[in-house]
């Protein structure tokens, strides 16, 4: 209310004065001292408020936030390191288990292979013995048969000679002749 009254009064009185004096308001030196005084008061107050209250407060806010952000980032990095470590440990356990399983499998496989091998060898040896025995029998029977062939030939020869000549030849001569034929 007081402002409005002052304004109205102001528009009338100095307006007329300005027209009388013809001074351009910004160059009217009668107002300089009042402006300078109030500028000094207000700007001084502003500088005091800014430098003592506002700016340290804002700086503090920004610093706190920066500290918080970097702290959180550090924590996140640490967590990530832990996670990586856990991952590595898991991988290692997995690899160990795999290696163990593989070793067990290999052992079993080797053992089974050895068993089978042994069994096969034993079987082969048995078969070989049997084969040898059979072979020995065959050769024995062959020899027997061959001896029998000599006596049959001698008998046949003496019978043939007896038929042709009518005389019974000497057995020793016959067997000699047979042997000679057989060998010749």
């Amino acid at each position, binding site marked *: 209310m007081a402002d409005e009254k002052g304004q109205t009064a102001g528009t009338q009185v100095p307006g007329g004065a300005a027209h009388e004096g013809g001074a351009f308001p910004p160059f009217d030196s009668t107002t300089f001292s009042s402006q300078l005084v109030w500028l000094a008061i207000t700007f001084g107050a502003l500088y005091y408020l800014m430098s003592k209250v506002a700016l340290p407060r*804002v700086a503090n806010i920004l610093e706190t936030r920066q500290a918080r952000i970097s702290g959180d980032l550090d924590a996140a990095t640490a967590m990530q390191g832990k996670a990586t470590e856990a991952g590595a440990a898991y991988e290692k356990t997995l690899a160990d288990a795999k290696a163990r399983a593989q070793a067990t499998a290999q052992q079993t496989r080797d053992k089974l292979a050895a068993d089978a091998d042994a069994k096969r060898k034993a079987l082969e040896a048995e078969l070989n013995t049997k084969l040898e025995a059979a072979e020995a029998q065959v050769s024995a029977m062959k020899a027997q048969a061959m001896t029998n062939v000599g006596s049959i030939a001698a008998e046949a020869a003496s019978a043939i000679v007896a038929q042709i000549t009518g005389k019974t030849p000497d057995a020793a001569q016959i067997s000699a002749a047979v042997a000679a034929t057989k060998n010749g």
Partner: protein
Amino acid sequence: MAAENAIDPIHQFQINPLFSDHVGAVTFTNASLFMVIVVGLISLLMIVGTSSKSLVPGRLQSAAEMAYEFVASTVRSSAGHEGMRFFPFVFSLFMFVLFSNLVGLIPYTFTVTSQIIVTFAFAALVIGTVIVYGVMRHGSHFLHLFVPSGVSPVLMPFIVLIEVISFISRPISLSVRLFANMLAGHITLKVFGGFVTLMLGAGALTGIASILPLAAIVLLTAFELLVAFLQAYVFAILTCVYLNDAIHPGH
């Protein structure tokens, strides 16, 4: 009276006493009122806005932090790490000029920075700080500011003369730039506003055509918003550049 006010584009720069009849040495005027309003608004943003000190900022705190970081990066990039001791000073300057410019764009308000004495006071404060700090810190070595190294002795007097003139013209250019930008912008807005009222009063046809200056006002207001920010930024960055000279006088 109203018509006269609408046409007279200079009226808005008039300094009026608020509680007395004439402007004395310490009279509280409309200019003083808007200085107080500007400081109040900045304090509202920077102190009330940051009072919760929350980790996740709200709107006001976010704006306050943005202003802080914007000015801090400007100071750091143009005056170096050592320049940060002037950060509260540059910040106060930037915010005062910016808020004066922005508040002045609201109709029926007074623009503090449209007064040459105010901008000149700021410029003198900046240059005064530069000289006092430069001499305090470097003594006579501060005069090397005017004597660039690697110049032939024949040219040296001219170079020194040019450097001295450039140094002296700094407060003038710094203050006139801001003052003239604000003054010209506000006069232009007022003139176009005067066109609208004149054309509306003159007749039906010109009344319809008054849409053109009205559109111009809309565009100019957007442009003035840009100028308001830009001039505050230019003022702050030039302050940093001059302070950098005080910190590192040898070019």
